[in-house]
């Protein structure tokens, strides 16, 4: 227990002045707690200080705290913040704290911990953890014909295309025979079933619909097959949670492992997660949930906002107590009129329950602004056709930047319900670019259609050759072929201006030709001597093969390598000789990978210029994109084949696998980007984001790029899941409307200083009804009347706790080479041969385990 420091001392030291409710929430540590947290209400700070309070002043061991956040980034920030606060405590009181064993992370990462945590294992041995498939791996697993066919067969369909049709019609409401579409639909459906903990055998008893029964059989086959993957089974993100819940249910002690269960962003949790949380909290009943139903965004991923809206009732059911509710209602982010505007907006929907008993919303929040600045902070464009609106808003944006009302263009965000193929996004982008402003819009189009991606993949096609494929083509494939052509045209253009690059491409092509020829020579030789692929390989065979007539110098060198000779002999001694196949591959493999090729291509001027610009703070966009490409290439090497051999090149297998399977899948899935850990928005560019991407973020200036989204009908998955589980929820016909209200609420509550709303008018222009009402009401301020002088200047990002820098992986790495630091640490390039962060963490964490092993053993003896 700390002696010489109090919570209030620390608040003073960190200049934190909690309001009454915040303070109450921080100090409330017994029993269930329900925190409703409006936009900008400082909930992260409350969570941070509350956790500190538990650890320092209530003696709760960090490893007995479960704290789940929505993203890894949020978890990281929380952990870092806690470390900073705790180290101040340590320096004062000399009491050390170790957060290493605290369960803080996304629900998924904590579930993974649970699976490998001895505390939950019935025999307290280290459990065997299944391999976890992320979304893309799950897709490739299902898409693989051998797997998909097995699953289709389980449905009882003989004909694959007919089965694909059934899947697509039942889940996606579209009559298509495409495997890609069927797999995509199946994933949505399977994940939902896992998240709802549906037992397919039981569920089949509840439905007579033959197609749903088939889908349930397919799901059963899928989850069973995954559990049999080698060596210890596999799970996808949804099954992972179910698996963790299974383990907890098998072990009564699990209910007492955690003293405190804390869950952030509770409005976006799903059914299996709710079961997990209540199970973990059963022993001590200390569950604290934080969230805002008005900001629920993830129904399409299976989230059920009812978990939060009905939390009081559920808490009674599961734990037998009613939680204490505290509202974090004061918005510290936005100026007064912004808060007034979004509060007005959310009330323009009838949230009353159909039976008149209560609401589909936590309706009694008292949201208010902390800011006393009541000057205009919400402004609409003059009503007009899109072109006029674009140019008026771009004019305002230009003025804001010119008059230094923001420190960088990346402080002005354009938010859209969706970006892909959106005409408004396109219009704004063109208008901004026409005015000399740069845009960063990773989700506006396909990532693969960005210049950097087309350049790299185009050059790859020049090196490896464009894969041939014969029609008839589906529409997707036709578009994809056009993309491949665009890539090669673009690459040709780059190579035409760069002699060295041209020479490099020619060299690489010759090299590929050479190994292909060697492969032919060896195949002929092997055939002549009647050797078979699988036969054990001896030293004698090596000598003979190396003499094969017509073999190139490089293949001879590979076969005569001392190292290879030694390994062959060793394997013979160990009675585990190589197979001929391996040696043939060895002699005809390239010593570079697709990642090496990427880094080599970056030697040429077109790419070098990007690096030069980023090194001096000019433009970060291209480097962000190149970093993402390294991630895709590394994934290809991990999931397919890391090494390029002649047998892989034979029959264009590599080209087909790389371009027509892997990259094509990324193209069709419209892959956009990875979640960025640190600095998502490059300097010098105006970010175009989906509202989902903007969740939890704030910007000095926000432009609502498109004030319209149609109220979609509920998905078939939603309907089927409800029918199978018997769970109720918001009325199915109002789901679309509710979801859109919440989505726009998130958008409208992002700005700190200024919200700009376009007012499109004319044929075909539609604005979502509540927004339209507000625009039409007449008291809305218009851009021409807006006095920019009243807009405060955006402060630089205030990081109240400061950032943590590691002596080794920041300071020393930077001092060794700032450029290396930038590429690998800041932009997260995946290295090909050098060792970076991943390597270091792996070694360190394993050494830590080794030390623990000896420490424990000493304790025992």
């Amino acid at each position, binding site marked *: 227990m700390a002696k010489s420091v109090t919570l209030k001392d620390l608040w003073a030291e960190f200049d934190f002045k909690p309001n009454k409710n915040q303070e109450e929430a921080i100090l409330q540590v017994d029993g269930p707690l329900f925190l409703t947290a409006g936009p900008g209400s400082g909930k992260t700070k409350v969570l941070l200080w509350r956790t500190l309070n538990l650890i320092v002043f209530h003696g709760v061991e960090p490893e007995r705290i479960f704290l789940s956040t929505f993203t890894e980034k949020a978890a990281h920030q929380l952990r870092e913040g806690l470390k900073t606060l705790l180290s101040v405590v340590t320096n004062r009181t000399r009491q050390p704290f170790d957060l290493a064993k605290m369960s803080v992370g996304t629900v998924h990462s904590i579930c993974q911990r649970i699976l490998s945590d001895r505390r939950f294992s019935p025999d307290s041995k280290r459990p065997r953890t299944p391999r*976890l498939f992320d979304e893309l791996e799950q897709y490739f697993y299902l898409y693989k014909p051998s797997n998909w066919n097995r699953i289709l067969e389980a449905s009882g369909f003989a004909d694959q295309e007919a089965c694909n049709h059934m899947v697509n019609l039942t889940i996606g409401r579209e009559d298509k025979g495409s495997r890609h579409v069927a797999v995509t639909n199946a994933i949505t459906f399977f994940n939902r079933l896992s998240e709802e903990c549906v037992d397919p055998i039981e569920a089949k008893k509840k439905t007579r619909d033959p197609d749903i029964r088939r889908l349930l059989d397919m799901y059963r086959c899928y989850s069973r097959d995954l559990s049999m993957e080698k060596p210890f089974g596999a799970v996808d993100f949804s099954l992972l949670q179910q698996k963790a819940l299974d383990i907890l249910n098998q072990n009564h002690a699990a209910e007492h492992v955690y003293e405190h269960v804390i869950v952030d962003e509770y409005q976006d949790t799903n059914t299996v997660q709710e079961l997990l949380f209540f199970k973990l909290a059963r022993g001590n009943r200390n569950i604290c949930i934080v969230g805002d139903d008005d900001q629920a965004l993830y129904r399409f991923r299976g989230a059920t906002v009812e978990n939060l809206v009905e939390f009081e009732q559920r808490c009674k059911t599961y734990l037998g107590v009613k939680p204490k509710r505290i509202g974090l209602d004061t918005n510290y982010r936005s100026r007064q009129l912004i808060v007034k505007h979004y509060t007005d907006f959310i009330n323009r929907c009838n949230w009353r329950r159909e039976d008149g008993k209560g609401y589909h919303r936590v309706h009694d929040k008292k949201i208010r602004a902390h800011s006393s600045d009541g000057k205009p902070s919400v402004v609409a464009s003059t009503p007009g056709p899109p072109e006029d609106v674009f140019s008026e808003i771009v004019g305002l944006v230009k003025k804001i930047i010119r008059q230094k009302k923001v420190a960088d263009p990346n402080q002005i965000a354009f938010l859209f319900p969706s970006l892909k193929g959106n005409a408004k996004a396109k219009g704004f982008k063109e208008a901004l670019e026409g005015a000399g402003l740069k845009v960063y819009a990773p989700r506006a189009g396909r990532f693969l259609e960005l210049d950097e991606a087309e350049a790299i993949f185009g050059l790859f096609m020049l090196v490896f050759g464009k894969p041939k494929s014969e029609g008839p083509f589906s529409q997707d494939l036709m578009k994809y072929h056009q993309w491949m052509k665009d890539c090669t045209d673009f690459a040709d253009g780059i190579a035409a201006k760069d002699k060295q690059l041209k020479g490099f491409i020619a060299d690489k092509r010759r090299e590929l030709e050479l190994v292909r020829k060697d492969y032919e020579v060896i195949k002929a030789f092997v055939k002549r001597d009647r050797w078979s692929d699988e036969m054990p390989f001896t030293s004698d065979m090596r000598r003979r093969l190396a003499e094969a007539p017509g073999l190139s110098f490089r293949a001879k060198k590979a076969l005569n390598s001392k190292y290879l000779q030694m390994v062959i002999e060793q394997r013979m001694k160990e009675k585990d000789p190589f197979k001929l196949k391996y040696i043939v591959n060895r002699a005809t493999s390239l010593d570079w990978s697709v990642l090496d090729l990427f880094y080599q291509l970056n030697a040429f001027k077109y790419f070098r210029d990007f690096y030069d610009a980023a090194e001096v703070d000019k433009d970060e966009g291209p480097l962000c994109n190149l970093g993402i490409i390294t991630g895709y290439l590394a994934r290809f090497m991990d999931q397919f084949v890391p090494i390029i051999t002649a047998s892989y090149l034979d029959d264009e297998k590599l080209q087909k696998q790389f371009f027509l399977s892997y990259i094509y899948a990324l193209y069709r899935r419209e892959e956009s980007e990875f979640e960025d850990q640190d600095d998502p928005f490059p300097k010098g560019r105006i970010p175009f984001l989906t509202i989902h991407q903007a969740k939890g973020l704030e910007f000095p200036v926000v432009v609502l790029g498109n004030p319209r989204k149609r109220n979609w009908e509920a998905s078939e998955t939603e309907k089927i899941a409800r029918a199978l589980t018997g769970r109720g929820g918001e009325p199915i016909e109002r789901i679309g409307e509710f979801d859109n209200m919440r989505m726009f609420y998130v958008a409208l509550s992002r700005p700190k200083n200024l919200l700009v709303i376009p007012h499109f008018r004319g044929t075909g222009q539609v604005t979502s009804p509540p927004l339209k009402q507000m625009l039409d009401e007449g008291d809305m301020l218009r851009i021409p009347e807006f006095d920019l002088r009243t807009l405060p200047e955006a402060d630089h990002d205030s990081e109240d706790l400061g*950032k943590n*820098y590691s002596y080794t992986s920041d300071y020393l790495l930077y001092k060794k080479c700032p450029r290396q630091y930038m590429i690998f640490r800041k932009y997260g390039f995946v290295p090909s041969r050098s060792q970076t962060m*991943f*390597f270091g963490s792996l070694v360190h964490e394993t050494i830590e385990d080794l030390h623990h092993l000896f420490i424990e053993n000493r304790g025992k003896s």
Partner: protein
Amino acid sequence: MTEEEILKEIEEAFNLNYERLRLEGGHALTEDIKRLALQMVIRYWKKMPDVAEKVTDTEVKISLPEQRSPKRRKFSIEGIVDILKEEDETWMYDIKTHDGKYVEKHLRDYEKQLNVYSHIWKGLRGEELDHTAVVALSLPPQLRDALRTGDEKRIESETAKWNPLIEIPFDQKHVDETIKEFGQVVDRIEDNVFSPPTLATLKEKIGGEQFGTRICLNCDARFSCRSYRKFALGSSSPTISAFKKYIEDLGPEADVEGWTTDNLEHSEIPEAVDIEA
């Protein structure tokens, strides 16, 4: 525990850590690099059992919070150390996975680092401390070669020759100066100042080799680097063959061969590729 049991534990822990980090980082390591990482841990234990088996506090996070950079940015300095407390003395180890020769060359930087760490440990926390040392785990090429052959005798003799422990004189001086320099680096990072070291730096010797060879040749981003280009190519208009040599140099031959062998063993080349029309 028997030696085999310990090795098995190490391997299991290693694989678990690998899987988790793979997901967190969003990418895998190639087989050769993965193997090297495992060997590093095993070699550490074999070489320094007196440390590995006796550490009392492992991977302790220490931090110096509430600092201000020259441009008034708030930051804290963090480090991770291993502590070995015995009855008569306490050691602090900083285990590093990088190059021992580089550490020797830049001893000043490491001295300062451990000075800051001891300042936190002893000065702020009031804990005992008598010695500080860096453990530089990167395996020398001879030892890596020996490991590739699997020849136990050679491995043993190369392990015996290897000296990963570098004791750093224990001192609490220069802490303020180091913190100030640290703050300057924080400002440069936040201001996006990322130019590579100059050609002169690349020509400096580290353990008999130039920086450009020893460090840059290990960096995948060297091809797009101005300084390395000057270092490796000399003139701005190199001959065709010089350029070819430059761009196709993927590192020391033994490493390149090891890379191919290790990764090929884990490659399954498909018989045919399925594509959907």
